[in-house]
């Protein structure tokens, strides 16, 4: 079996008394995309910063491409690309100048740096805008340029920290598209995201990270299987009916209901007995005045997984909950790429 191209073992990072990472393990194999999924402040960025040599871990170790992120930091910087959270481009330089500068800082010669800048601009569909200052670019174009800059050095591994945060929907799709393209070209990628859908769409494997720990890891499908079976989802017409619905449905299904007042929805894991649970629910609600907009059975989405892992209960239970999935994570064989669209 090939050894992982990114390997993190028990990475811990403390900022003063704050434990940003509490010992995370990660493995990413060549040619695959790992999504680091978690809410704000979960430790995703800290993890990326350690793996890209910007930050030293308090303890634990990590290797990228066989190089230790602390000891071999200098050599490692030749082999990685990083596009951070803010599109780190110089607004006053043109797109071409930005990339050329990065090329020069990879110690390419002038001519070579120019050629490479042109190549990458073209690859990212920015050739036409290449001679315009980056401040005239749209948010999506800037992000493209930022990612383009991280590719100038032909990195073996690319790190994208929340590549779509702060982008409008159109730019976001744009970013998705070129991440998929890179994936198809066999790039090795680690990307962080707060969006479940994004992780679902773009990654081969997902590590769910919450308050500094990896609380689950696997393919999108594997994670969904954790919920086991199906999910019953109800939408009510009057949003404040949701709590009453949840109460009425107590005992139906195999787990606790997730109530979302904003969406006016109740989601209930129902195991393999979906139809019976559906009928039972309908019967129970039939006697009430509660108006349903929709009721449906579906496979769990990552939302369900996420809620069951990090939802309200997770707040109290996050400490004990982290140990269990960690243990189960052995070395898994390299997964073939499998994109699951929900």
């Amino acid at each position, binding site marked *: 079996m090939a050894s992982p191209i990114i390997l993190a073992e028990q990475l811990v990072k403390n900022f003063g008394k704050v434990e940003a990472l509490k010992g995370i393990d990660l493995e990413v194999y060549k040619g695959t995309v790992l999504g680091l999924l978690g809410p704000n402040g979960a430790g995703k960025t800290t993890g990326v910063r350690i793996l890209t040599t910007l930050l030293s871990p308090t303890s634990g170790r990590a290797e990228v491409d066989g190089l230790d992120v602390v000891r071999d930091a200098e050599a490692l910087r030749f082999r990685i690309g990083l596009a951070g959270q803010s599109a780190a481009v110089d607004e006053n330089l043109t797109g071409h100048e930005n990339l050329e500068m990065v090329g020069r800082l990879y*110690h390419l010669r002038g001519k070579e740096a120019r050629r490479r800048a042109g190549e990458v601009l073209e690859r990212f569909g920015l050739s036409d805008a290449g001679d315009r200052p980056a401040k005239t670019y749209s948010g999506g174009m800037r992000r493209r340029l930022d990612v383009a800059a991280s590719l100038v050095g032909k990195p073996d591994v690319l790190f994208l920290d929340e590549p779509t945060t702060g982008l409008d929907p159109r730019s976001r799709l744009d970013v998705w598209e070129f991440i998929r393209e890179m994936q198809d070209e066999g790039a090795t990628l680690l990307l962080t995201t707060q969006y479940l859908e994004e992780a679902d769409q773009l990654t081969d494997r997902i590590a769910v990270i919450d308050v500094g720990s990896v609380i689950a890891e696997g393919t999108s499908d594997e994670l969904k299987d954790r919920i086991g079976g199906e999910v019953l989802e109800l939408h009510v017409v009057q949003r404040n009916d949701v709590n009453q619905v949840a109460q009425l449905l107590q005992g139906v299904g195999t787990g606790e209901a997730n109530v979302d007042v904003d969406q006016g929805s109740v989601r209930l894991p129902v195991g393999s007995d979906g139809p019976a649970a559906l009928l039972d629910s309908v019967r129970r609600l039939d006697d009430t005045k509660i108006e349903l907009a929709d009721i449906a059975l579906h496979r769990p989405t990552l939302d369900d997984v996420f809620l069951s892992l990090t939802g309200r209960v997770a707040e109290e239970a996050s400490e004990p909950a982290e140990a269990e999935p960690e243990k189960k994570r052995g070395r898994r064989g390299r997964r073939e790429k499998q994109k699951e669209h929900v």
Partner: protein
Amino acid sequence: MSAAAVAVSPPSNVAQRVRLAISDGIVVAYRNLVTLWRVPTVLVFELVQPVMFVLLFRFIYADQFVAQNLGNIDYVLFLMPGIFVQNAIFGSTTTAIGIADDLKKGIIDRFRSLPMARSAVLAGRTTADLAKNLILVFLVIGIGYLVGFSFENGLLGALGVIALVLAVSFTFSWISATVGLMLKEVEAVQAAVFTFIFPVVFVSSAFVPVAGMASWLQPIAEHNPVTYWCNLARYLSIGDAGIPPDPTTGIPIDTPEGLAVKSALWIVGLLAVFVPLSIRLYRKLT
């Protein structure tokens, strides 16, 4: 695509390391100068400020309280060398602001993830600011000539002033870089550098003779390096009259050589502290 295009190993010996550090520094300096060129408002505003200082001191303060301690030199001849030094120090604050801005925009993160020399970002920034301050020096000299100043100690003296002023501005750029890396926020940096710089510049012979200050302030002002630099700049600009006399004996308080040595020692000393300190802070950024 040719996969071999990019170098994959760090420099292997010291000579190569130094060469790459210099070329990386030039790349960064070039980037900063391009910015300066494309956003000239920065330069314009930086120029407004010395003009304001010259006008304020030259036409408001000059005859009010300064004249009595000047001996027999014209205030404008006294003032302008002080303005040159003051302007060099004020001009160095852009280093801190530029670094804080790059930090905020994530550009420093990008640089730190690249296989470039760790010193290059700071060296490139301070060098670019040095070039900018050179432009400002010439503009301020021009303003001086408009209000009645002239170099009266020969071309060599004038070149000496320019060299001194650039050395001072370069030194303060590194101090400024240190502040920028410590505080990280543009607004905080702006407030901090001026809070620090105002007393340092004002409690010196930059604008007024030390002899006219409150007596408890005089020893501080006398040993302020800014005073040495201003007095040296004055000597280089207008000759012996530029070195203030001791109020009781009437003998000049220092020799030109003495001033030059003290000025140089302060510059070298400050650089020896702040260059390594700021590079260390850069390396330790989180």
